[in-house]
């Protein structure tokens, strides 16, 4: 008769904490790619300017910041204000959009999740990747603006030896937003109270993330708090690497990786528990 071990799927009510099936996600890699393609192509359908909107958005935001915060004479660590805000805006946008989209993974996709099984993590992963595509395109704009300032102002020095760190810092942003996003999406399936919180939280986080202020503006404990925030660390280090202004610290990066890693594991456990039965409570 049957041998116990030749079943492909065994489903029981309770599962162990870390039953993340990475192999299963790999099986669905085509789905991730198609979802990324869907996200990227469907957003600008029926628009005339199309992907140009990806540039227009950060340009406007940067101009507004330059105007408002520039008027207030906030320090920019010696980086030209326009460039300072554009860097902050570009990377912060990546983080906040990932967070906003992944934090509604369960509620926004309940129609699909209720009908078909696939590893639920596929959805937030595809969000992170499709926003990465968008970030890549926006980086073109950043490079153009950067070149203008690089050749017109002498104060900027690219830290060539540290340039390799940038992908790792973007990865840090992605994983950190994924962790927060899936954590929030798990918490909001049954009780929607956190939905109200996340809007405030994202705004607050922006001010603590060196988007509009440099870390050097803060002293003592607050600075320490800011540097425990992986978003702030990423932004600060990216700014340093491409302009040579600011504080560089490999310890900060390592601490951020540690914070993110712990949060990521914790979120995965919660997400994994939620995905089994969220259809009943969503």
């Amino acid at each position, binding site marked *: 008769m049957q041998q116990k071990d030749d079943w492909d*799927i065994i*489903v029981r009510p309770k599962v162990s904490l870390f039953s993340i099936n990475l192999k299963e996600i790999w099986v669905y890699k085509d*789905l991730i790619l*198609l979802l990324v393609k869907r996200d990227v192509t469907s957003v600008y359908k029926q628009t005339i300017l199309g992907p140009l909107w990806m540039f227009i958005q950060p340009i406007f935001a940067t101009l507004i910041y330059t105007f408002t915060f520039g008027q207030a004479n906030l320090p920019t660590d010696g980086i030209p204000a326009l460039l300072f805000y554009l860097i902050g805006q570009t990377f912060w946008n990546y983080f906040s959009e990932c967070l906003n989209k992944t934090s509604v993974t369960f509620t926004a996709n309940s129609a699909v999740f209720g009908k*078909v099984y696939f590893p639920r993590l596929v959805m937030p992963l595809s969000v992170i990747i499709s926003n990465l595509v968008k970030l890549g395109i926006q980086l073109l704009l950043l490079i153009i603006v950067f070149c203008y300032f690089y050749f017109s102002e002498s104060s900027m020095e690219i830290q060539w030896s540290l340039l390799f760190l940038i992908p790792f810092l973007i990865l840090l942003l992605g994983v950190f937003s994924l962790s927060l996003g899936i954590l929030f999406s798990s918490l909001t399936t*049954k009780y929607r109270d956190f939905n109200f919180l996340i809007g405030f939280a994202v705004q607050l986080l922006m001010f603590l993330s060196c988007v509009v202020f440099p870390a050097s503006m803060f002293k003592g404990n607050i600075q320490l708090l800011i540097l425990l925030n992986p978003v702030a660390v990423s932004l600060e280090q990216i700014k340093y690497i491409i302009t040579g202004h600011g504080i560089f610290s490999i310890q900060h990066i390592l601490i951020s990786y540690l914070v993110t890693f712990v949060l990521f594991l914790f979120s995965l456990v919660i997400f994994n528990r939620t995905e089994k039965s969220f259809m009943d409570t969503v």
Partner: protein
Amino acid sequence: MSKTVIQVNNLGKQYRLGQVGTTSIADDFKRWSYRMRGKEDPFLKIGEENDRSKKGNSDYVWVLKDINFEVKQGEVIGIIGKNGAGKSTLLKILSRTTSPTIGEYKIKGRVASLLEVGTGFHPDLTGRENVFLNGAILGMTKIEIKKNFDAIVDFSGVERYIDTPVKRYSSGMYVRLAFAVAAHLNTEILIIDEVLAVGDAEFRKKCLGKMSEVSKVGKTVLFVSHEMSAISSICSTGILLSNGRIAKQGKIDEVIDEYLNVFVQKSTSRYWNEGVRPGNEVMELISINLINEFNQSIQAVSMGQKFGVEITYELKEDGVRINPGVTVYSTSGQILCVSMPESDKIITEKKVYKAICWFPETLLNDGTFSLRINAHTFYPTKMHFDFQDIIIIEVIEKQYEERKYDYKDKVLGLIQPSLTWEIK
């Protein structure tokens, strides 16, 4: 002997009724505190049987309880039951969109579930893009979809529109394309929930054909439907669910019979007590019954069986000519035929009559028909009573294999009369 591909042991699913709010958070805390102390979940012990029509004492109900069954490879198993019997919940659990509260199940092979057609279709994407996306959501790889792409488009019959966004599609085209993707899934086990209740007759026939074809190549199919003719034509075995428990399982014919005879609300007979009988001062209607050739009440008609509609009425005045009439409607509201007794059969003496309208063995095709029954006196015309949809006839063709024709699939048409053939 073929091997078991699905094994379900003691499966149960409990739901909490009512809204999510402060009561549910109190229950959640209680559950959590019990778990922290290493005790069993306190809410698993309570909970009532699921009967939607009765008011219960507890907020917790078991929508499925003590479900045990096995499915062998290549079996096409039909799951039937009334609304709310737990059919869809069972399919949801088996397709892993939700998890069971207790029990476990094991599956061998890849599973594709079609609880809906067109899951994940994005309105702004073209038909082509959606085929790939939908295929991937259902678990196909890009290469598999590419390989089947032409077959999918061909099956759907929407080739002309394939590069148009699906939001411009008619609903029929949308469903055709969506089902076409599903029909080309390459998985060993298919779970299907009433998706065939869409599309036009030609396409439905295509779908049913595809499903029986699928089972012939050794794939296993779990199929939920309310349409007995579809179930009986493609399924070999069945499970009847009632209030979350298995009421019967076994051969599909027996399961369907049990369902029709025990569980379907009787719409094959009506009786009126004295005082509430429809009619007027000349006549009163007493009962209407669907009967077989031995004058016994029946709930459903097997194809090839002679049956009659028996109208019992009382004539209260001598000399009035009562013309009972039977009109047969298809489910889409089309009139198939109208029938009434010949003039010389009408008796005008005052007493209780049984007027029986006999249907020949071969007239109605398998499917559902509804009867309108009335009675008239003509010139001057007077209607005594008139009931729309008073009797519902379910005609079932048991097994296509036993048919006397070479063709063994569903025959189209509302009627299937036995026309005489001559081949010279």
